[in-house]
């Protein structure tokens, strides 16, 4: 089984896994192999790379979005989704669900890097969404008051 991980910048990598008897996992990543054992004890799961040192493992309820400190990864189990392209500093994408409070620019407006393009309210906070590059507003896919899911391309800026 091959797992694909993809972060917000659409950077991607994969890890192969083979599940053996007694919850033994054999991983392959960029040619390197590593094995992992899992045991269930007192209703909880534990993992070990050497069979001696054990740590608690959270059994994951879904295989949607996984997070590694400050990066969010989508996980694809056994398939690689098509149509995912890299997007650059000029693509303003919602990082969390929210609502558009104010839109400051129109299509064709010039923007400089760091300039506020719109205000997005999320979790009761107003967040200024700034341009990641110097350029011109190419497309606007939102309007004020609109509620958005995470991962929505709000504005594209042509550099």
């Amino acid at each position, binding site marked *: *089984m091959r*797992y694909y*991980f993809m972060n917000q910048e659409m950077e991607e990598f994969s*890890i192969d*896994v083979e*599940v053996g008897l007694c*919850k033994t*996992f054999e*991983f392959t*990543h960029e040619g390197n192999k*590593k094995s*992992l054992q*899992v045991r*269930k004890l007192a209703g*909880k*799961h534990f*993992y070990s*790379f050497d069979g001696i040192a054990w740590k*608690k*493992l*959270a*059994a*994951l*309820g*879904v*295989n*949607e*979005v*996984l*997070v*590694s*400190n*400050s*990066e*969010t*990864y989508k*996980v694809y*189990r056994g398939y690689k989704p098509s149509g995912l392209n890299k997007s650059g500093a000029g693509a303003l994408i919602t*990082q*969390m*669900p*929210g609502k558009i*409070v104010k839109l400051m620019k129109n299509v064709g407006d010039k923007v400089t890097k760091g300039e506020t393009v719109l*205000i997005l*309210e*999320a*979790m*009761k*906070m*107003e*967040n200024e969404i700034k341009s990641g590059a110097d350029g011109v507003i190419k497309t606007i896919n939102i309007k004020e008051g609109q509620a958005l899911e*995470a991962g929505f391309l709000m504005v594209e800026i042509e550099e």
Partner: protein
Amino acid sequence: MKGKRVLIINRGEIAIRVAKALNELGLVSVGVWTDNETEPPHLEYCQEWVHLKGNNNKETYLDIPKIMKIIEDYKIDGVHPGYGFLSENREFSETLAKKGVTFIGPNPDAVYKMGAKDISKQIAKEAGVPVVPGSTGEVATIEEAIKIGNEIGYPVLLKAVAGGGGKGMRPCASDKEVKDNFAAVQREALSSFGYAGLLVEKYILNPHHIEVQILADKKGNVYHVFERECSVQRRHQKIIEEAPSPFIGADEAVRKDICETAVKCAKAVNYDSAGTVEFIMGEDKKFYFLEMNTRIQVEHPITEEITGVDLVANMIKVAFNEPLDFKSQDDIQIRGHAIELRICAEDPITMLPAPGKIVGFETTFPQGIRFDHCIFPKFTITPDFDPMIGKLIAKGFNREVALRKVRNALDGLIIDGIKTNIPLHKVILNEENFVKGKYSTAYIGTIKPQEKVAVKEDIEAFMLKIAGIELNQMGSQS
């Protein structure tokens, strides 16, 4: 008091904390759930569950007529508002008083006087308590705000009259910044507290945020339960609190002074519940009255841990005219040290909210840890509510022990599927200045611990996530 039916108009960890105290005291805890909360974890501790229909806070946790209807239908004797929502709303506490329903909090007059920052400042002044210079009343227009800004000198802070908890407040360094921010702070004030009124005050640089816990009964007895240091803040919201304050340290004269000043403030409004008097303290240890929060505070557990006083149970008892657990100020003593970390669903580097669905949750804690939270696997954090999902509290014989315990607890706290500020807390707990207890509210801005959060995880971390998913695929019998 036993058998009284108490409605909790709140959610999350504070609703759990309140329900626990009600149950223990022999009262009936009645909890609510709204259309936005399909599996509200706080109901676990509530004896009865009532549907509070509606999709947003204005239709639910802030809807006084709807809540009054429930109070009537379910024969409610008392209401606990928790923090936020209607906890400091004069209209709500007056409506309850008229209906003869016990509000578990101070009398409406104290809510009104201390709830409105302009009046509270005036009262503090009259009681001889030093205050930070600023507008004495509400500031209605940008022009007025700019005028005051020039009178008291920039930087100034624009803040909501009805606010608290860091929401609806922004510092401004110039006329232009006042102009740019005024409308936004008004909007935030309106959406968070239902009231858009603003204040302007002097913005003191590098101050300490130190607050004093008050516990008072309805017979005029007002006690302090010592201070908390809440200077580790981001976006003017606390993320780490300690008790006692490492900045006051062994300076018992300052501790006595600030605590007695807090009692003076509380007495000035005939305070009769649990509350908190907030101060700004400069490097010279001079302190100024900031505001009084007329409710139970998020960070109340650290005070409970170092004094052994159950603040929530006592708050409920005094509301029903039962005596406090103690009879004199001397009965309350500090023993040990406590630290609280607010665990938030937010990006540890940008510190911006990051809602999502929790897919894995495990804890491995040392002895002496208290985790007040509302987390469970499959819990969805929606953008509708505050991103705080838990409070990790460590108690130790001294600060060094408490630090050791909270560090170890943080290593044993796994929350998978969402971004949290756990990695940021790990950096702070090992950062030199914090370890020494040397920090002001400028800490996050100047030390920038967020920049030391590792962005990329080891490849092993991804292997563990794969193993977790595979185990889940194998089913529950595995």
